[in-house]
Structure formats: structure tokens, C-alpha cells
């Protein structure tokens, strides 16, 4: 992390990266300012990760402790893969909203705070007292505080500073980080393109005023975060938007869903855009119906998708068992949240892995892909559709709230016709080929589609023969179960081991899956630089499991997983070495490798920050 030392000399000081937060009451436009800053920085070649700070309540009262609304922007001269540790600089519109951020460990001693000063002179004594108390607390925490009259400065330009303050803040940040004002102005013009020119002019004026204001009040806060070489055509989106675009790019024409946080925004996107590529999004009466609808559409020819989160997954369970048993391709996009039950709807957790793999009654193996970057959220859906069709089975793509809400840039995908589903096949079905003509070597079988003459059969969720006839005899059930399992063995044989980051041997290997990748790799790199013999690997295809793990793990003294799901603390009290429950991937890996793989995990509802992982590495390796 870069230091925050004020530059004594002339001109901006070069830094590698910074983390900024803008925090306000909701409705003050902090998020818009932050998004604009993020896209402006991406345009200037910076790596950027932004994530919104959402108030705990839907309509919190002004200046309430639960009301923090805003945005965090981490940007640098390199690719940014996660939201990082504590912020370097915070702009706050009042003091109250910052309390909650301390609970999230968002700030450290030395974090610069630029805060609206008008509360010091508020006519209401209670407000003055609250403001003073907040500043007192922040001072104790070691923040470097600058009380500044943002609103007075805005009043010079607009009678309604509440609405304009955000562009003023964007101007301040543009001075502090030496942003290209012309790009900022173009962005503003784009945001207000549907408004009158005078609205654009006003916001441009606020931007300029903010720039001058920062230069006047905090002239030494002036940094340069150099951009990279032109990275080529670039997309900026969050993981849910990426997944939705992946669905469209995969040629999935039918998506059925029921609203649930945090998956819903995938459907909002599709509701707005899917029809443009000739598709349809169905909002079903519940998640079971959504899965059934998608299965129906898939059965009838073109692989469909359903989208959900925790409780919705629970409701889809029965339908997904049917799809596995009757071998109906299906793409399931699962955006994980905190569980069990309704759990933590808006928070980050990776705790549905075992539910995905083992949620059905009976033996129901399935394919599970875990996206580890926003870009993978796009590409994994395309892969999932192909696998679903080839292996005639449901394929889960797992992401989580961290990827769903994080916004970052990635190379614009070059759309390919081969990504699209093949058109509906209505040719005559080859004579003599049965609806489950299992290849004894692979378990795979071609699938007749309604409309294909000669392929008529009745699909059933009951045990069935190759003819799809209901059959309960021992041999048929044993054989059909084997054939369904064989498909996964066949797929597994085509997979390659995951890549190792760092040396292929050492004292510690960290194994991760899903959205923790950015933080894990950042922490490991830091620890490697500090001389620790630590490496990491990230598993993308969890079921069937990528091969070669045991060979890889053997070369490390310790192997642990880092995950965002529950595991018991170290032995003590009733928790013993024997009964201790480990994190979910660790359970799978222990079974897979018969090795003593430990886990380090928590359920704080937050992305795991690189600093915490670094500390764990040091704790395990420092003798």
C-alpha cells in the first residue's frame, strides 16, 4: 500500500494505487460520482474496482449510523481484482454515516478524511454535538481530518447543493488524482444527455469549482496514478451484468427466474436487453416453477437458463434432480449470498457449494463451475451452455455478492457465432436410436427433441431404460446410474489441473474458489515478496473436480483453503480435532485427496480482504 505522506515538493507525486470512499446519506449522488470517477480512471488506463456501499435500511433517516450510502473506488497502475483493505482517502458529507464503516474496518490510522464542515455551525445543538463527537472519535482512530465547506462552495453555483455536491466532489477528486477534466466533462455530458444543456453546464461548473476548491484547500494532496498502455477495447461492468451478457452471447433464448437478492439484477439486465437478441425472460410464480419452465424449454430444444440465490436454490432442488435424472441440459446461474435460510440477503458468502453438489435426493452428480473474476462470469455461462448440451445435464455457474456488485474492467469479448446455441434440429430422428442410447465408454447419448419424427419418447423422472421406459429392476437402475455418473468421469478426463501462482513447492499452498481469487493472489504475492514460501491455486471447475490436485498438494508442507463460508474455530471446548467442521471446499478436497487439508474461513458477510489473508499466511509461517 502506498503511503499518504503529503508531497512537500512541487508537482504531483506518483503512486501505484489508492482506495477512496465517498460516503453520504442515500440520495446525495455519491455513487454516481464514484462510478464516474471509476470509469474516468479506467479510460485513463488505470485498473479499477468499485463497489457500492449500501445502507442497511431501505430508507434510512438522514445522518443515521445505519445510513451509510456511497461507494469505494480502488484504482491503480495495475489490474485491480478486489476492493482491497483500508481506504486511503474518504470524502464524507456528514460524520454519522461513517460509524458503520469503522465496523467494516474500512479505515486505518492515517486515512485522510475530507468532511463537510457545515454541521459545526448547525442551529440544532444536538447536531453540533453529534458532529463534534464523531470528529473526536475519528481523531482517536488516527484519521487525518480536514473539515471543509463543500456546501458553501456549491451554493456559489447552485441553490440546491444537495443535488450538485456529487459533481463537486468529482471535481475535488479530479484535482487530487490529476484526472483528465475533459474526459470527466464528456462523462457528465453523457450522464445528463437527456437533460437540457443548462443542466450539463451546471454540472460542469460544479466540477470545475470542486477542482479549484481542492487545489485551494488541500493543495498538497495531489497524486498521479499512472495509466497503463492502451489496453484495447474494454468493458466495465459488474459480475451480474457480465453473467447476463454471457447468457445473451451464449444464445440462451429463454431465462426463467423469480426475484431474489443478489441474483435479481441479472434478470433486470435481461428484462431490458434479452428481447433484442430474440430471447424471452419469464418471471415465474416461484423458483420451482422457474426451474420447471426452463427445463421445459430446454427439453423442447434450446438450452435455457434459470437464475437464483440461496433460498431459491433450495426451492429448485426437486426440479434440478429431475433434470439430472432425465438428462435435460440446463444452465443455473447461482449468485450466492449468506445463509442458511433467508440469512444475509445482501452480503457476501460462498456457502452454497455443498448444497449445489449434494442438494438432491438420491445420487445426482452435476457440473459446477465457479467464476473467480467478473470476466469469468461472462465466459463461464458460455462454457456452461456448451457443457450442458454436450453432457445433457444441468450445469451450475456459481458467483457471489462480491462479484455481483463489484465493478471492474475487462477486455471486450469478440462475439462469436460458435458461442450461440445451434438452431433447433427438426430433422428426422435416426431409426433405431433410443432416447438414452448411452455410449458405454462415455455415458453420453444424443437427445431427441419434440418435432423430430421417429424420436418420440416420454421423458420420466422415474428410473428408466434406454427406451425411457419406467423400470424398477436392479440391473436397469444400477446401469443407468452408472451411465449418468460416467458422463462426469468422461468430462473430468478432459480437464487440466489448475494453475499454480508461485513456486510449485513450499511451506504453504492456499487453495481458493470463486470470488476470493483477487484477494488471495494479492496476499500471496505480498507474502512471497516478504520471503514466505507460499503459493496459491484456484479451482474453477469444482465438479467434476479438476485433476492433479494430490500431486500438486504433496509438494507443500501445509495446504489450506481460504473461503467465505463457515468453519469451526481451532479445537477448544467442545470443538475437537475429531468433530471440527471445515470449510466447504476443504471438505471436498479432503475427500478427493485423503490429505489433511485445513481451512481458514469466516462468515463476516464481507469479501475477504487481502490484508487478512496476508496475516493468516504470516501466522502460519512465522516461526
Amino acid at each position, binding site marked *: 500500500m502506498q503511503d499518504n505522506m503529503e508531497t512537500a515538493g512541487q508537482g504531483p507525486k506518483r503512486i501505484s494505487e489508492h482506495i477512496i470512499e465517498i460516503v453520504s446519506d442515500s440520495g446525495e449522488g455519491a455513487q454516481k460520482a464514484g462510478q464516474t470517477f471509476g470509469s474516468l480512471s479506467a*479510460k485513463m488506463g488505470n485498473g479499477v474496482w468499485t463497489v457500492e456501499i449500501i445502507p442497511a435500511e431501505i430508507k434510512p433517516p438522514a445522518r443515521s449510523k445505519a445510513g451509510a450510502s456511497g461507494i469505494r473506488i480502488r484504482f491503480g497502475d495495475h489490474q485491480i481484482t478486489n476492493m482491497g483493505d483500508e481506504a486511503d482517502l474518504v470524502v464524507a458529507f456528514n460524520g454519522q454515516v461513517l460509524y458503520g464503516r469503522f465496523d467494516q474496518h474500512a479505515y486505518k490510522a492515517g486515512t485522510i478524511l475530507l468532511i463537510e464542515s457545515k454541521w459545526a455551525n448547525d442551529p440544532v445543538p444536538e447536531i453540533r454535538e453529534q458532529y463534534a463527537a464523531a470528529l473526536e472519535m475519528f481523531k482517536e482512530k488516527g484519521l487525518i481530518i480536514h473539515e471543509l465547506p463543500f456546501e458553501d462552495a456549491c451554493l456559489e453555483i447552485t441553490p440546491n447543493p444537495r443535488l450538485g455536491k456529487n459533481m463537486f466532489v468529482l471535481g475535488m477528486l479530479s484535482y487530487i488524482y490529476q484526472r483528465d477534466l475533459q474526459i470527466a466533462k464528456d462523462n457528465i455530458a453523457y450522464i445528463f444527455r437527456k437533460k437540457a444543456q443548462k443542466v450539463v453546464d451546471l454540472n460542469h461548473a460544479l466540477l470545475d469549482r470542486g477542482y479549484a476548491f481542492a487545489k485551494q484547500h488541500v493543495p498538497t494532496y495531489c497524486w498521479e496514478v499512472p495509466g497503463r498502455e492502451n489496453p484495447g477495447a474494454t468493458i*466495465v461492468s459488474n459480475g451480474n451484468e457480465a453473467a447476463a*451478457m454471457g447468457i445473451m452471447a451464449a444464445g440462451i433464448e429463454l431465462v426463467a427466474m423469480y426475484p431474489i437478492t443478489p441474483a435479481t439484477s441479472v434478470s433486470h439486465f435481461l428484462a431490458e436487453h434479452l428481447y433484442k437478441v*430474440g430471447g424471452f425472460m419469464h418471471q415465474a*410464480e416461484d423458483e420451482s416453477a422457474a426451474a420447471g419452465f426452463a*427445463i*421445459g424449454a430446454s427439453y423442447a430444444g434450446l438450452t435455457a437458463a434459470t437464475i437464483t440465490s440461496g433460498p431459491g436454490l433450495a426451492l429448485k432442488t426437486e426440479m434440478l434432480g429431475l433434470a439430472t435424472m432425465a438428462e435435460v441440459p440446463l444452465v443455473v446461474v447461482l449468485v450466492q449470498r449468506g445463509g442458511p435460510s433467508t440469512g444475509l440477503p445482501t452480503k457476501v458468502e460462498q456457502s452454497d457449494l455443498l448444497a449445489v453438489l449434494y442438494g438432491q435426493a438420491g445420487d445426482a452428480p452435476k457440473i459446477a463451475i465457479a467464476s473467480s473474476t467478473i470476466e469469468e462470469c461472462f465466459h463461464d455461462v458460455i462454457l456452461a451452455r456448451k457443457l450442458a448440451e454436450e453432457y445433457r445435464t444441468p450445469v451450475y455457474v456459481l458467483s457471489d455478492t462480491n462479484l455481483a456488485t463489484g465493478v471492474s474492467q475487462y477486455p471486450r469479448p469478440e462475439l462469436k457465432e460458435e458461442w450461440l446455441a445451434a438452431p433447433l434440429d427438426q430433422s428426422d430422428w435416426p431409426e433405431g436410436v433410443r432416447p438414452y442410447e448411452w455410449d458405454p465408454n462415455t455415458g453420453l447419448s444424443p437427445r431427441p427433441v*419434440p418435432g423430430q*419424427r421417429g424420436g*418420440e419418447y416420454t421423458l420420466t423422472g422415474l428410473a428408466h431404460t434406454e427406451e425411457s421406459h419406467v423400470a424398477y429392476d436392479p440391473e436397469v437402475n444400477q446401469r443407468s446410474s452408472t451411465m449418468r455418473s460416467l458422463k462426469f468421469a468422461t468430462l473430468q478426463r478432459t480437464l487440466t489441473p489448475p494453475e499454480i501462482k508461485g513456486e510449485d513447492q513450499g511451506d504453504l499452498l492456499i487453495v481458493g474458489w470463486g470470488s476470493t481469487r483477487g484477494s488471495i493472489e494479492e496476499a500471496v504475492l505480498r507474502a512471497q515478496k516478504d520471503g514466505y514460501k507460499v503459493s496459491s491455486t484456484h479451482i474453477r471447475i469444482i465438479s467434476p473436480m479438476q485433476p492433479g490436485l494430490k500431486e500438486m498438494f504433496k509438494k507443500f508442507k501445509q495446504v489450506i483453503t481460504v473461503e467465505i463460508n463457515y468453519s469451526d474455530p481451532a479445537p477448544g471446548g467442545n470443538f475437537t480435532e475429531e468433530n471440527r467442521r471445515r470449510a466447504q471446499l476443504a471438505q471436498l478436497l479432503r475427500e478427493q485427496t485423503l490429505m489433511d487439508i485445513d481451512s481458514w474461513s469466516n462468515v463476516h458477510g464481507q469479501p475477504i480482504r487481502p490484508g487478512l489473508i496476508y496475516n493468516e499466511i504470516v501466522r502460519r509461517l512465522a516461526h
Partner: protein
Amino acid sequence: MFGLKADWSLEVQNRYFTLEDYNDGVARWCPGCGDHTILTAVQRILRDHQVPPEKTMVVSGIGCSSRFPHYMATYGFHGLHGRAFPVAEGIKSRRPDLTMFVTTGDGDCCSIGAGHWVHAVRYNMDMTVIMFNNEIYGLTKKQTSPTSRAGLKTNTHPRGSFLPPINPASSTLGMTNASFFAQTVDWNSAHLNATLEAAFNHRGFSFVHVLQRCTAYTSYLFDGMQADPNTLALLTGPGSIDLDPSVARIFKNRIEHDPSDIHAARRVAETTDPFPIGILYQDASKPVYDDHSNEGLGTPPEAKIKAMNKVLDLFSI
């Protein structure tokens, strides 16, 4: 149609379908079970309309009645208990070319599938739905169904079921966007055929409630009705089913009824003794969800990629 390769249409004159072309094997229901007559009735309709078997879809849930697709030589989907409707809707959503039947039991539809039933009526997708009401759970051996009469002794209520039964007619007609509801009985083939024919010809969710004899568990419930046609009331008048006069003659109880009048339909739905048979309600002008879900079918790949690139543009910097 919609970019589908409809190559069978070229040789349609060369294909003539007989009842056998829709029949797959020997149906394994109990002898005398009402399901047999319904199976024959559906096969007759398909034959009469010369629907190619490969273009016919029968979707069901779980129950004796839901075994139906296995005895048809068409495409079939024998899915989950209570969940035939969502699957049928999904199939139909992108395949307007398929002729869709749904077969469901009283437990399948009115109990475990009740949530889907409400919404299926409202979606009003183009399908013919046959609800086999034997007032009992047949497959799982004589448990109480929501349509079981109060006092019926079953394995789950050996002292008699506690509550009055759900009335499928008034329930369906109470739901928004209902577009077709008819009732009939399995033991009068002529009436059954004519009713299913009317349902088949209706575009939308055509719901046919059939009283069905379960010889294993509840046939005695319908013995009286079977013996005495006066326990039934034939709905007559403009818009009623097309029934042969020789058959109509046996029904002495008649209700002159206008099936386009929802209020009259709801009044008729409330009467169960005598049990009204025929079309209670029909309105072909109700919105059908298919018209939305079919949108964009057959969009060529180049058009998709072009549109998709425009969407990517929105997120490009």
C-alpha cells in the same frame, strides 16, 4: 414457421394417422379405471385432427393419471408431482408449433400443484388440460385429496375426512384471466369426446375437469351418478358443446347457459347436485402468454450478434 424446418408438411398428404399411431403399448391402469376412456378420447381427437405424433406433446405430473404420456406414441414429459404446468409452459413458450396436452390428477393439480394452477390459468397458454378427478390419491393408495368429499374414509383420515372439498370449477373461474372451463365424466364417452374437442379447439388454457372412476378405491362414489343420468345437468344453448342429439336425449336435467357470461358461469360452478356438465365458460379474447414468450423466435445469428454488440457498446469505455 418461425425458422423451424417443417419438412413433414411437404408429405402431409402421404401420412394418414390412425388411432394406432398415437398408442404406445398396453396402458397399465386397473381394469375399469376411468383413465382408459380418457386415453382413447385424446387419441381420437389427435386422429380426427391428423396431428403428427412428433408434433404432439403430453406433459404430466405424478399419479396414476400422470402415467398417461407413457401410453401415447407422441412426445411426453412425465415430470414431478404437482409441477406439470411450469414444464408445459416452458415447452410451449418457445414451441408454438407443438400441440400441448396436460394430464393431471386432483392431488397433482389442486393440492401440491395448486400454486402453479393459479398461475397457469392466468398465463392462459395454449394447451388442453385434463384434470382427472377421482377424489382420491390413487397411485399412493387411498389418501385424502383436496377434492375428497367430507367424511370420506381414507388411509390418512380413517374416521372420515374433515373438510368440504375444493370445487375445481369455482376455483378456476375465480382466477384472473380464465378463458375456458368445462366439466364432464369419464363414463359418457360421447360427452367426454365432445367436451375435449371443444377444449382442443380453444386457443388458451382449456381446462377440463373430468369426474373419473377409480375402481380400486372410489368407484362407488360415482356408482349412483353412473346409474342415474339425472344426477347430471347438461349445459345447453349457444356456445355449448356439440353433442349428438341421441346422446343429449338421455339428459333430462338441462341448464340453459351462456358460456360467455362469467357471472352465470360462476353460479353454475357453485352447483354440484345435479353436477353440471359441458362448457361453463369460454372467452377466446383473453390474452395468451404465448404471444409474449414467442417473441423473437428464429432471430438469425447475425442479427443476434449485431444486437449483442450494441448492448456491449453500452458498457464499453
